[in-house]
């Protein structure tokens, strides 16, 4: 990664697309303070991030909910870590569990749930902390297409009820355009921002329907051209690496 500079405004939904290995996940880890930049700095809510940013929520690509906790205990985790009394945390957790559509499953363990339900648990677990910045690293990549569309719509609805900024990493351009206010295209490594596109599609959006909007198609073609060039570069590099 080199010369990577971008800003995300308050309440903005920003999607990042880029070829494989261009440092999209690393970018999120830097914002979250899980990794430190070798040079430069990350500023979240006016504070330079040193060790663990405050006010940040993070949904990981793979399941990161705790397999030994029930749904309720999983969703409670954040508030309890932050010193909220147990009964308050549980009341909040119940609220969030029903908001993500899991009411009745409070006592289940993650291995008793489907992939989509586990994502819902992760979503509730993250949102209960009311993060000002929500980082998402291909959170729905492992889901089937129908479940994924459902989850995307639900995410948009939950987000519209909050004032959180979202940084959403994906390699699916359609998903990026359907969800975001702005799409950043990363170059192949070393990553910089190649181009930033404003997505002026009206809200509230329905992810399943917005894809048929002619403006969507236009945007898709323009961004795809950028993205394809970078993907080709990344691919050729990986071929070279395998050959040598």
């Amino acid at each position, binding site marked *: 990664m080199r010369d990577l500079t971008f800003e995300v405004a308050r309440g903005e939904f920003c999607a990042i697309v880029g070829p494989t290995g261009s440092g999209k996940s690393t970018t999120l880890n830097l914002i979250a303070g899980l990794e430190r930049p070798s040079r430069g700095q990350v500023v979240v809510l006016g504070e330079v991030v040193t060790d663990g940013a405050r006010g940040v929520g993070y949904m990981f690509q793979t399941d*990161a909910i*705790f397999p*030994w*906790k029930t749904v309720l205990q999983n969703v409670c985790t954040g508030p309890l*870590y932050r010193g909220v009394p147990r009964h308050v945390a549980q009341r909040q957790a119940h609220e969030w569990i029903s908001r993500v559509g899991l009411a*009745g499953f409070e006592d289940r363990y993650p*291995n008793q749930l489907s992939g989509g339900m586990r994502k819902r648990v992760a979503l509730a677990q993250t949102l209960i*902390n009311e993060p000002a910045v929500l980082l998402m690293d291909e959170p729905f990549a492992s889901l089937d297409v129908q479940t994924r569309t459902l989850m995307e719509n639900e995410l948009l609805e939950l987000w519209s009820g909050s004032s959180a900024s979202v940084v959403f990493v994906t390699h699916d351009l359609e998903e990026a355009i359907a969800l975001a206010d702005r799409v950043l295209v990363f170059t192949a490594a070393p990553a910089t921002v190649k181009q930033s596109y404003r997505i002026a599609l009206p809200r509230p959006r329905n992810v399943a329907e917005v894809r048929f909007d002619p403006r969507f198609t236009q945007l898709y073609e323009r961004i795809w051209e950028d993205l394809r060039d970078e993907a080709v570069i990344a691919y050729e590099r990986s071929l070279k690496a395998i050959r040598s």
Partner: protein
Amino acid sequence: MTKPSSHMSGPSRPSGPDVPPDEPLTDAEAAEEAHARRRHRLERFLQVAVFCAIVGAWELSAQTGLADPFFFGKPSGIAATIWRWATRGTPQGPLWQHVAVTLEETILAFGIGVLIGVVAGFALARNRTLATVLGPYVRMGNAIPRVILGSIFVIWLGLGMASKVALGVTLTFFVVFFNAFQGVREVDPNLTNNARILGAGPRQLSFDVMLPAALGWITSSLHTSFGFALVGAVVGEFIGATHGLGYLVAAAQGAFNANGVFAAMVILSVVALIADALVTWLERRLTPWRPAAMTQTF
């Protein structure tokens, strides 16, 4: 080192409250179920048949003089010995007393060994300096043939229970230690990262994330370590004791009583099997989030 079965994967059955109640089975399903039952019965029958064949062959060769019962014992003699010990007591006192002593030593050694093992494994896994400094000594300690220590412990601690417990602890400790250490080291970094983002401090990270995550490794070492605790107790009794199943074996051996040695062995096996079932139960209690099929043994 024993590896825990993965508890992240596995198909999730739709068992929510919105699943319709059992519908009547179709013919094909009923036939399949009957087939499964038949196969299950056959397997059980074969299990018993294997036992009968081995014991029968042994008894037969002892009866016909093919194997000298003085050296090899015979199943009927072993059964008679167990019955005599159970009803009229052993030459060294009532049977239950010996069983109780061995069990007490085993459980004490198991408990202490597991406790020290988990604490030490956890501490070394969480503290790099500690691991670097103490690591070689732990490996050295593990390399000592522990059974030899039995003699030292008898000299230090006498013929009583303490020497057997000490031997059992030295055997149990290392199994649990290495598993706890490995378990904490292999905690999915996704889980710790998630916990950190959610606001966990170092203490919460240790006890709310690392420990439960390592519990899979730790519980899967419990079977092995309980076996080692039992070995420690019996070997200790063998070396020098006044009570216990190992002492019974030693006494029977001294009297050239092959049936007696086998009888003590059978009792020991039964005790071990029951204890193993209890450990399985404990394992389920400790890790209720793991699907039952994955902790099931045959």
